[in-house]
């Protein structure tokens, strides 16, 4: 099956294990070395995520409230469905990969080509989906206020029991404040774009609408976010120092900042793996078409990239559990 360059060394037994005690080629073994070390890198990421989460166990964002979008279903609360779909896509592309490896064992060039193509398509869809998830996460949905201590204050409409969006209830205040541009002065400091509503506008809108209350980061005994009463809300509103819309590495409207940081790092690092996996698969795909492995006499290269591809799938299984389910 796996035929490597046969040397004279193969026949002579060096020590008791022989020259190939593990019965695996050099390339495959090195791929396994890489996978084990990469698995430990992901372990580091995921365990530090767990560390931050246990450290903030009573104020961590609830994933079901963060990832609620599904393509073409606007305004419909669909937690988890999209990530579940992404998981299925990735598992399926893993299956086409292992079928390509199997076809390679039987030297069926056309089948290997076909299955490799399906794998590449599956991987591309997955990366695209992840980009879309990022876009929704970065843009945010309802917006929130941030206190001096970095706590997030979100708003709930008691008449409907649903979250209220700050852009909707804020009352506009005429102001001359505009984004500082380099064209407006010699001495300037670059400034990011202003939020769509200012802190004062949100406060004014909050006081004008009697149905609004504030929801804090803290979780109650049932694992739900604590919703304050109207009078408590008015009191805590004074602590707010800024408006947060969406999430980035510094601010995060969904709750704890570390949540956004780990989301970007872990899914980003995984997405980078998927992306490089797709690129490697494309290279191997063209090699298959060109008949490189047909001439070489074996498709072990497909098996090696297959190992990498399955590993990416394996990591996603864990990311899915720890980010979206647990």
């Amino acid at each position, binding site marked *: 099956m796996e035929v490597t360059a046969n040397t004279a060394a193969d026949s002579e037994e060096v020590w008791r294990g022989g020259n190939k005690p593990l019965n695996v080629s050099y390339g495959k073994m090195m791929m*396994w070395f890489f996978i084990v070390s990469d698995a430990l890198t992901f*372990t580091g990421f995921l365990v530090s995520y767990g*560390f931050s989460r246990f450290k903030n166990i009573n104020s961590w964002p609830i994933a*079901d409230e963060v990832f609620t979008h599904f393509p073409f279903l606007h305004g419909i609360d669909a*937690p988890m469905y999209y990530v*579940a779909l992404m998981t299925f896509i990735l598992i399926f592309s893993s299956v086409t990969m292992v079928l390509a490896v199997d076809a390679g064992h039987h030297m069926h060039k056309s089948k290997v080509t076909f299955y490799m193509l399906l794998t590449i398509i599956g991987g591309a869809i997955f990366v695209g989906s992840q980009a879309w998830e990022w876009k929704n996460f970065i843009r945010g949905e309802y917006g929130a206020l941030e*206190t001096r201590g970095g706590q997030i204050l979100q708003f709930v409409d008691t008449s409907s029991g649903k979250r209220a969006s700050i852009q909707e209830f804020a009352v506009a205040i005429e102001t001359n404040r505009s984004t500082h541009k380099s064209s407006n002065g010699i001495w300037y400091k670059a400034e990011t774009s202003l939020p769509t509503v200012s802190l004062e506008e949100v406060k004014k809108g909050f006081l004008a609408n009697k149905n609004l209350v504030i929801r804090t980061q803290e979780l109650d005994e049932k694992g739900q976010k604590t919703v304050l009463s109207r009078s408590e809300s008015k009191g805590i509103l004074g602590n707010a120092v800024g408006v947060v819309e969406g999430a980035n590495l510094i601010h995060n409207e969904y709750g704890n900042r570390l949540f956004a940081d780990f989301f970007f790092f872990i899914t980003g690092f995984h997405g980078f793996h998927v992306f490089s996996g797709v690129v490697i698969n494309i290279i191997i795909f063209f090699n298959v078409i060109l008949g490189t492995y047909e001439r070489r006499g074996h498709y072990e290269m497909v*098996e090696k990239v*297959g190992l990498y591809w399955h590993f990416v799938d394996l990591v996603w299984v*864990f990311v899915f559990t720890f980010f979206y389910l647990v």
Partner: protein
Amino acid sequence: MEAEGHKLAIFRGLLKFKSNQQKIWGVLIFLSIVTTVEVALGIIKPEILMIPFLKMKILNWIFIILTLVKAYYIAWDFMHIRDERSGLKNSIVLPLLILIPYLAFILLIEADYIFDVMDSGFVAWNF
């Protein structure tokens, strides 16, 4: 049950396949079922599974166990660990099996301690 170097039985021999392709599809079906169960549990969140057990809800323990089950079948059947020599198998699996729980254990215990300090300490974190 071996064909061209592939071991074709899963679930400790409970389920035997005729060819490697069949085994691949069988494992896919199994993984899909497990994922569907996970997603269904995640959406329904049955009240009975929300009881804490060892610092975590029972539901979360179920998720983690199902994840490990999935990981096992991906590694064993898709990555062909099942067909490798035991030497290779052990040198891949044992380092991970020893180091990962170890790291998780010490860091999570430490995080739990830090939570207690922040929770009952004299420093205000929420201002």
